Each structure stands twice: as structure tokens, then as C-alpha cells.
């Protein structure tokens, strides 16, 4: 009787699972294995020979002779026995059993045939026309499923400010805004996109993204942290290359292997400075070979992170705990970079006054060995390692008859048939235009990553990138011309309830812009900014005591004079052990490791900076002077509106103007009675024939407008 009841229950459960959609291995089964099993049965331990990162150990005989999973037959699957066993010595996991739901999932999955598909990020791009053939179609179809609509298109002021910040990292000028608003032609928006893509500032903006990936800095790092006086020449190469829209495949190949090309042009050799950006330890007691292997490991890790969305680093000491990546495969990948050595070339260019030495990479043959437990003093000389890419990653028909070198690696990374790097790179561009990644774990496309909600969209973009011959500008144009991009970022209650984190893009995102651009906005709004594309790094004012933070105070920060004091944030000299706090406070990376997505911190230190820092206060002084000069005979309200527009690209609403008028009056009252304070607060930004006490209130009003959330936010 008892067993009869049990059977009925089992039957009911099975028939229920049969009714629903098939078990999704990636979303339902793999997470159980990773969270509950992999600590013992993964890349590090693989107890009893079972390793859930390796499919073959799961479906073949184990050390014990048992088979973990036999498709369609839970009863012939040791995995099922173990997770349902009540015997203390047999049951798995030993300490905490799986929940009934998890057991049911695994059982149903085995019953259905134990389908173990290739990891989503490594499988070919999915091209299903029924899911739509454009960004908007794909987005709208998905939104329909969950019962919400797209947001309306943002107003023109928001659009031009958003586009300007995203594409060139500068706010639009008053004239540019008016031109766009007055342009009623059908393609006004497309023309604007085109103009911005052709701007020289486009290269600056998108170079800075690349510099994050490359961990660019003007010094070596570590204790000595010696400066790298010509590092900027490579930065200029990145800016120019992006402005010329060098196709991303070529952009990749030159940076990975420019030195190996036959008759390589100097610019192609210069490109390899991507790999010169690693830290370099010149501490006295450092074993040079140890530091070289560290730099090589960093090059391998950085390449894997930037192009493949993979964190390789675990595998330098042991097989990867989660990903199907062995220690040997790590060193096969490492081997590509083990033939690189630091070198210098004389470089000539029209932007250089004379030939200059630049640090690049060149080839030097070395034999690679696996390092036992990652220790460079313990090479395992019995195994000869040659360069190749990990087996679990896309295998692309390439000439395997000869040993691979970095040229082959570059070709493999940007092969049109390599779905992984196409996905990683197009997702990267998307992320910069939406402030959100399509893949939840931006820096991890490995097997622990769940497929994105918008996998079709990601694959559509990846395919598009290929079709557009890896043109960065064209892919950006394609994305920003979509209705999805143009949506308003204002939240809608009903849509927010169904899609609270905006995974389905029912609106644009609203976010604080990066630290360099915070500076650029302050300097642009106040008219202080001085533009020059490229050139050596500059030294804007920093607080006393910062430079002294570096080792033994061996570094002097000589504040730049003249125009160089007001250059864009991306040109600020980056000393790794004593970086400009105005950058770090706003989450600019510390350049020690590659970063593909920045944090956006919102804290009191940020507030103190924009309220009190010398650079930002100078912008407030200059903005006050600018509006009085621009509008010598206008009334207070108009001047407030002018300042407001310079900072936020929109006109202030009457109630906003009124609030600022109140502040203006209070400030006037104070400075009328405190003439000395008035002189102090305007600093060097006085105006002839205007009393300090009349100008000073405008400084206080300007600084509050500059501190608006909106001023440093891209909407």
C-alpha cells in the first residue's frame, strides 16, 4: 500500500514535468552542479574521477566502474542514486542534501536524455529570423512576452546630450543644441550621429574605454613606480586608430602580433605596446625572471579577459575549478606571450617633434613549461608546451599542421567564425551605450555565466559586427540609431514592476558619467577646457601631499601651466602609486589590472570633491564670469537659465529658477556685507568694472548648478 502511494506521487511529478518545457541545462541543472557538487567534483579535486566541468567524466565509467549519468535512465545513473540515498556513507552531497526540487530537476533532466549542450557562449551564433531581424524587433518581441511596452523616445535635448556624452564625452554646445532642435528634417538625428562619429573627440572618448582594458598608465607600478615618459605615444595611436575606424580585427591583430608581421610598419610595432602596459617591478630584490613570468601571465590573463570574457588566472596553479580549462591549457595559452620581450623602437610621426623612443614588444623565443603550482621555480620540464588555444573554446578550422604563434592567435580571436570574441566585443560596445551589459557577468562568459536574457540580441549584434567588417563606428551607429537606444530613461511604474532591473530594455538607463568626463563637463560648461588631441600627459592641480604618497616621495608633481592645465581628464598623468584623487574618487581604474566595466560610486567623498576641490571650484568661478560676460544686460532669471543650460543642456523650469533666485538673493545679502569674502570667492575670475560683491553671488549659484545630479549624469 505504501509503495503504491509513493508510485502515484512519483507518477504525478513526472507527468507534471513532462507537461512543461524541457529542462534547460544551462539555467537549471548546471547551477546545481556548480553550487553543490563542484567543490569536490570540479577542476581542483575531481574526486573519484568525476569532474562536472568535463562532460566525458560524467557520461563514461568512473574509477569505481559506475557511470555518473546514463541518459534517459535515472536508475542506471550513479548521480541519481547518490543524491537520493539515505545511507550516510553513500549520500551526496555528504553534508547538506539537495532539495526535493533540485532532485526532481536532475531526475527529469536525465529522463529527458541528459542533454548537455555546449556552453552558450561557445556555441555558434543563433540566427533565428522569427526572433526579429533588428534590435528593436528583438526587444519589442521580448517586452510583449512580459506584457510591457518600450518607453517613448526621449526629447531632443536629452538625445543630443546623451549622444554627445556617449560618443565624444563632451556636452553639446548651445549652438549645437539649437541646430539640432531646429533641424526638422527626417534624418536630423542620423546626421547628428554621423557628425559625432566624425569628431576628433570620438577617438578620445572610445580610446579611454580601451585604455581601461589595457591598464594604461604613465608609470611602472610597484614600489619604484618609475615614470614611462613616452607611454602617451601609444595612447595617441589608439586615439588615431579609433578615429580612422580601423576595423576591430586589424586593431586586434596589430596589438597582439604587430611585431611579427613581415615588413611591419613602425605603427604596427607600436601597436604591441598594448602588452607593454603591464606593471613592472624594479624593486631591488626582485628576481627578474619571476617578474617576467608575472608580466607574461598578466598578458595572457588580460587577453583572455578582454577578448574572450574569461578569467584564466585560477588555472595558472591548478585546473580551473569551474571552467573546463586545465592547467596545461593555461600554459599553452601563456606560451603565445612567452615569446614576447620588452623592447624599444625609434618612432617618427608628424605629431612628434623629433624621433622618440617608444617601448614596444618584440619576439624572443623561449620554451614554455607548466609551472608546478604556478611556481616559476618549478617548471615541469618533462612536458613540452606549445602555443594553442584551450580545447573547450571554439575550434575553428585553422592550420594546425604548424605550431601556432601570436599571428594565429590574433586571427583566431577575430575569426568571423569565433562566436565567443564576437559576443564579448559587441557586448562591450553595447555596455558603453547603455551602461548595462547584456550578459549579467560582464567579465565572465565562462561556464558559470548564465545565458543572457537577450541572447538573440547579443548574437544579432555579434553577427552585425562581423557583417560590418568589424567597424566600430558602424556598429555604434547601428545601435544608437535604434529606437531602443533613443528611449527615454524616465522610469515608468508599471514597467518597472515587471522588469525592475531593466534587463529587457524597456527604457534607457540613467547613470553618472566617468571621472574624466566629470572633469570635462565642468571645464566645458565653464568654458575653461582647452582641446588638443593626444600629446604627453599633463598635470592639472592636485591637492598637496598626494604625490608624496608614492614611495620615498620620489615623485614631484609640477602643475601644468597655460592650456595644459585645462585639458581633458583622459590626459591627466597617471602615476600608479599616487594617482590624481579627482580620477580615483570617481572610479577611474587604478591601472593595475584590466577593467572592462567601471564601478559608479555615489558617496560623500564624491560630493566633497565637486563641492570643494580646487579644479571644480575654479570651474564655478569661470562659469559665473562666463554668464555675466555672455549676458551683460540681461536679468537674473536669464543668467540663471544660461548657467543651467550650460551644465545640463536644458532650460531650467520656472520653479527651478525660483529656487536658484532664492539662493542668489541670500548670497547677495552675504557678500554685500562681506566684501573681502566676495573677492576671495571669485579668485582670479574678476570682471573689470564689476564689483566683486556683484559677481561673488553668481559663483555660489554656479557651484550649486554644477553640483546638480543632472550635471554629472547621462540620461
Amino acid at each position: 500500500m505504501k509503495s503504491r502511494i509513493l508510485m502515484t506521487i512519483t507518477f504525478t511529478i513526472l507527468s507534471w514535468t513532462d507537461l512543461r518545457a524541457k529542462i534547460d541545462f544551462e539555467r537549471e541543472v548546471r547551477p546545481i552542479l556548480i553550487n553543490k557538487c563542484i567543490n569536490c567534483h570540479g577542476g581542483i579535486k575531481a574526486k573519484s574521477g568525476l569532474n562536472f566541468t568535463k562532460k566525458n567524466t560524467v557520461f563514461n565509467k568512473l574509477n569505481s566502474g559506475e557511470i555518473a549519468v546514463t541518459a534517459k535512465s535515472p536508475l542506471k545513473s550513479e548521480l541519481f542514486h547518490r543524491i537520493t540515498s539515505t545511507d550516510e556513507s553513500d549520500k551526496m552531497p555528504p553534508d547538506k542534501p539537495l532539495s526535493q526540487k533540485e532532485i526532481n530537476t536532475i531526475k527529469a533532466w536525465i529522463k529527458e536524455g541528459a542533454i548537455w549542450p555546449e556552453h552558450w557562449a561557445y556555441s555558434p551564433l543563433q540566427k533565428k529570423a522569427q526572433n526579429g531581424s533588428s534590435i528593436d524587433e528583438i526587444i519589442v518581441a521580448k517586452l510583449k512576452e512580459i506584457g510591457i511596452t518600450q518607453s517613448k523616445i526621449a526629447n531632443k535635448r536629452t538625445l543630443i546630450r546623451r549622444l554627445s556624452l556617449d560618443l565624444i564625452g563632451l556636452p553639446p554646445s548651445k549652438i549645437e543644441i539649437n541646430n539640432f532642435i531646429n533641424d526638422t528634417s527626417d534624418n536630423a538625428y542620423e546626421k547628428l550621429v554621423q557628425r559625432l562619429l566624425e569628431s576628433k573627440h570620438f577617438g578620445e572618448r572610445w580610446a579611454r574605454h580601451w585604455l581601461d582594458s589595457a591598464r594604461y598608465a604613465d608609470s611602472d607600478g610597484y614600489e619604484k613606480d618609475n615614470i614611462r615618459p613616452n607611454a602617451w605615444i601609444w595612447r595617441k595611436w589608439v586615439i588615431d586608430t579609433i578615429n580612422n575606424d580601423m576595423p576591430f580585427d586589424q586593431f586586434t591583430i596589430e596589438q597582439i602580433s604587430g611585431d611579427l608581421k613581415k615588413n611591419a610598419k613602425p605603427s604596427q610595432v607600436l601597436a604591441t605596446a598594448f602588452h607593454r602596459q603591464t606593471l613592472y617591478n624594479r624593486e631591488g630584490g626582485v628576481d627578474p625572471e619571476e617578474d617576467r613570468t608575472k608580466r607574461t601571465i598578466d598578458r595572457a590573463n588580460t587577453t583572455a579577459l578582454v577578448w574572450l570574457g574569461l578569467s584564466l588566472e585560477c588555472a595558472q596553479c591548478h585546473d580551473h575549478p569551474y571552467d573546463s580549462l586545465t592547467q596545461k591549457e593555461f600554459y599553452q595559452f601563456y606560451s603565445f606571450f612567452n615569446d614576447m620581450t620588452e623592447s624599444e623602437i625609434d618612432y617618427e610621426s608628424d605629431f612628434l617633434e623629433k624621433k622618440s623612443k617608444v617601448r614596444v614588444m618584440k619576439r624572443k623565443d623561449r620554451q614554455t613549461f607548466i609551472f608546478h603550482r604556478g611556481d616559476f621555480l618549478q617548471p615541469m620540464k618533462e612536458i613540452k608546451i606549445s602555443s594553442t588555444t584551450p580545447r573547450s573554446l571554439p575550434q575553428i578550422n585553422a592550420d594546425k599542421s604548424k605550431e601556432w604563434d601570436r599571428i594565429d592567435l590574433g586571427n583566431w580571436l577575430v575569426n568571423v567564425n569565433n562566436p565567443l570574441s564576437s559576443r564579448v566585443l559587441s557586448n562591450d560596445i553595447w555596455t558603453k551605450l547603455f551602461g548595462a551589459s547584456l550578459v549579467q557577468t560582464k567579465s565572465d562568459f565562462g561556464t558559470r555565466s548564465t545565458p543572457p536574457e537577450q541572447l538573440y540580441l547579443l548574437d544579432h549584434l555579434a553577427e552585425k559586427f562581423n557583417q560590418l567588417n568589424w567597424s566600430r563606428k558602424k556598429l555604434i551607429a547601428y545601435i544608437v540609431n535604434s529606437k531602443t537606444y533613443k528611449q527615454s530613461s524616465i522610469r515608468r511604474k508599471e514597467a518597472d514592476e515587471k522588469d525592475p532591473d531593466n534587463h529587457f530594455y524597456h527604457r534607457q538607463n540613467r547613470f553618472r558619467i566617468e571621472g574624466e568626463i566629470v572633469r570635462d563637463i565642468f571645464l566645458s560648461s565653464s568654458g575653461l577646457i582647452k582641446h588638443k588631441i593626444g600629446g604627453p600627459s599633463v598635470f592639472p592641480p592636485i591637492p598637496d601631499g598626494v604625490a608624496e604618497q608614492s614611495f620615498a616621495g620620489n615623485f614631484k608633481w609640477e602643475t601644468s601651466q597655460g592650456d595644459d592645465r585645462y585639458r581633458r581628464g583622459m590626459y591627466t598623468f597617471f602615476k600608479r602609486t599616487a594617482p590624481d584623487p579627482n580620477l580615483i574618487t570617481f572610479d577611474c581604474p587604478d591601472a593595475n589590472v584590466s577593467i572592462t566595466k567601471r564601478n559608479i560610486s555615489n558617496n560623500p567623498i564624491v560630493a566633497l570633491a565637486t563641492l570643494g576641490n580646487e579644479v571644480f571650484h575654479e570651474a564655478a568661478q569661470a562659469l559665473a564670469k562666463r554668464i555675466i560676460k555672455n549676458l551683460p544686460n540681461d536679468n537674473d532669471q536669464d543668467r540663471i537659465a544660461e548657467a543651467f543650460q550650460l551644465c545640463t543642456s536644458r532650460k531650467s523650469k520656472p520653479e527651478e529658477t525660483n529656487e536658484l533666485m532664492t539662493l542668489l538673493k541670500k548670497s547677495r545679502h552675504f557678500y554685500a556685507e562681506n566684501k573681502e569674502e566676495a573677492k576671495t570667492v571669485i579668485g582670479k575670475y574678476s570682471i573689470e568694472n564689476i564689483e566683486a560683491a556683484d559677481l561673488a553671488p553668481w559663483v555660489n549659484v554656479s557651484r550649486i548648478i554644477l553640483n546638480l545630479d543632472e550635471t554629472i549624469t547621462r540620461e
Partner: protein
Amino acid sequence: MQANLRRDFLTSSASGIGGIALSHLLNQETFADAHVAKNSHFSPKAKNCIFIFMAGAPSQLDLFDYKPKLNELNGKKMDAELLKGKRFAFLQKESAVLMGSSRKFSQHGKSGMWFSDLVPNLAKCSDDICMIRSMHTDQFNHHPGQLQMQCGEAKFGIPSTGSWINYGLGSENQNLPGYIVLTAGRGSSGGATLWQNGFLPSNYAGVQFRNGDSPLLNLKNPNGIPIQLQKSGLETLRKLNEKHFSRTLDPEILSRIENYELAFRMQSAAPELVDLSNETSKTLENYGVNRQLPKEGGGRGKGNGNTYADFSRNCLLARRMVERGVRFVNIIHASWDHHSNLDPEISFNARMSDQPIAALINDLKERGLLDETLVVWAGEFGRTPLGENRPGRKANTGRDHHPNAFTALMAGGGVRGGLTYGSTDEIGWNPEENPVHVNDFQATLLHLFGLDHEKLTYNHAGTQRRLTSITRKSRVIKDILT
């Protein structure tokens, strides 16, 4: 609406819902609740930590680890077996000879704890100190070693201990950062990477206080903006930001409004914190706040010429910080790298630090704060029993880097005072009893705060990361707990 819901969740969760590492449940990158107190995994002993980091690696053999045998063997070669496979920064191991200590050692307190004559005041606190003589680390260069001591591993981009603790427990002070860094003398090898937040939200980075009366960057209003105008300005700012919130419903705006208000409170709280005018002259004297630098010695330890006074002041500030609920204070001093001139230079540093640290321990005790405040004294590694014999040197007057064995001190915060834990062999080369890896030390430190080092994790790049290395089985040193 959305934003209000989130806010309610935040405030209510401060007292419930398990509390732990709540920011992990929220959007990790944009909204971190650094200024909300959170619950620990189990009942904590320590609430605050003052971590005094002696960067450069002080010689344990001349301060704490008494080795009469080493003195006997002075000038002799050492057992070649022990040197096999060992690497040194500078030392030539083929010709190196042992170097005894010229310091006088004696026993102190109820337990008879050994101290050298360099630290007479610290010796008087021996009943409150737990001395671990069997520390060891994996790194033998400064910056990597300092990273391992502060962040668990010799890696960039990972959080420091202070970041982890604040991430786990939040701050108890609404007007000050939860993690403050104080430095005296010259910069350390590691610089700002020693108080990095790594992959944790940037609210958890250490905030460096500067010496002098303006402790935080940008704390003061620009000249010519008096406090009342700052206040009116911020009122206007709040109203304008609120209006914009009502249009966009973006909760980040509410967060920004709160942060401007906190910034304003910090503008008065931070200067009050560093204002020592209401400390008694006795207290100032105990800490040595007005000490002058001795005329002789010091070498690079002299720093800016104000190191003695700055270090004393930092110790006193650390007490004022924990009184105000600052969770983690890092005092960093960086000139213990004595490859040569060991005797005069270590003596200079010891005199600088001995009196104020002892004063700090006593002061905390008198105020009833020592039980809940953990004081740590440690460097990144130790120094060799071998004299350093670089080519071209006439005599061995210093010691090289030694990762195998060194000494760290703890006091208060749930640690057994008067306990000497672990030992090294007769020349101080390797730990003999109860070796303590840096990660074990860190696991123990977290334990004192009621945090389980295996549970205080953060998902980064697909891996649950923690302070201790995920590939090493680290242990809490239960024997040293009260």
C-alpha cells in the same frame, strides 16, 4: 515609488533579514550600504580594529623572538639543508653567515613574555598582548608581501581587510567613513593599493586621513564660502535634486541627496575628530604628541622630519576614531627595511613607535574600550637570522627579507593577553610550533569580529571571492581567543 520601496528595504534590513553583506543582494555596483550597521555571522568580540602596519618588515629577532643560540652561532655558516631551494632578495647564500642580535632581552609580565630593550613600554603591556612568533607568508618582496598581509593574496584589484570588515559589518558612525587610513613618515611600497576596495564597491575603500587639521581631501569649503552659504546652497541643491527625482524616479538621486548631507556632516565631524584641544596634557604627553625627532639616526625613517609627532598623533587619533565608531583604522609606518645599519635605524623606529602604541593600549584599557577594540602590530614578513652580505659590503650590518618566520602582536578585542603563541627553531629560521600563515591570521581576525572567513564572500568574475585564498584551507587560531 520604486525608490521608496528600496529605501524601506534598506532601512528595515539594517536590523533584520540576516543583515550580512546586504549590498550583495542589492545592485552591487551602484548602491552600497556602507553607512548602515549590519549583523555578524556569530557573536563578535571585537567591534573595531586598529591595525598598525609596520611596512618594510621589522626584525623580529631584534624585537621579540629571543634566540640566544643565534648569538652563540654569530659569524658561523648555517645548515646548508635549511637553505636548499630558498630565495632571497639580496643575500648571497653561499657565503652568508649568521648574525646574532645586539639587543638585550628580558621577560615581562605574569607570563614572562620576552621583549628586547628596544620596546620597554610595549613590554609593560605584556599581560594584554598576545605575541605570535610563528607567522609565515608566501611573499618575499615588499609590495607583494604587503598586499598579502593587507588583502590576503599578492594581487591587485582585491579588497583589503578593512574593506572586507566594513563590507561585512557596515559602519556605526553616520558622520565618518568606516575605514580610515593614517600614515606617518614616508610612503610605503604598496601606497594606496594597501587600502584598496578591489572589486567591492568603492564606498569600502579606505579613506586616507592626512596629517594636519584638514584630514580629508576637499573637506573645507572653497575660500569665501562660509558655512551658512554652504548650508543654503545644499538646501537649494536638495530641492532641485528632489524635483528631478520626482520626474525621473531614479533612486540614485535620493542616494546622492543623502550623500551630500553626509558630506556636510563630515565637514564638521572630521575636524572635530582631529581637534586634540580637549585632550588632557597628560594624555598628549603619554602618546608623545609633541615629541621632536631625535637629532641622531633614523636614515630614511626620518621621513618628513615630523615622523615621531605624526605617529604619536595617529595613535591618539585612532583611539578617537574607535570611540566614534569607526570600524577599521589602519596606521601605516614604512621604514623597517633594514638591510644595513640595522642597530641605529631599528632603534630610531622603535623609539618612535614604542611609547605611543603602549599609550594607546593603556588608554583604550582605561576607557573600557580594549575589550572591543583589536589592536594589531605586524609587518609583511620578517628578517633573516643571516647577516646580509651583499657583494662589495665590508661588514654585515643588516638582515634580508625573511618570509618563513616572523612575529605579530595582537591586543584586546577577544584575544588572550599574556600569551606567547607558536615558536621558531633555535636560530629563528622556521616556525617550530603552531605555524600561523598570514591567511590563518586573517581568518582569526575576521573571527574576532564574528565573521566566518569562508562565508564573508563576494561574487566576482564568477567566483565567490573572500579575504583568505580560496585555494588554501585556512584556520582560525582558536588557542589565542579568550
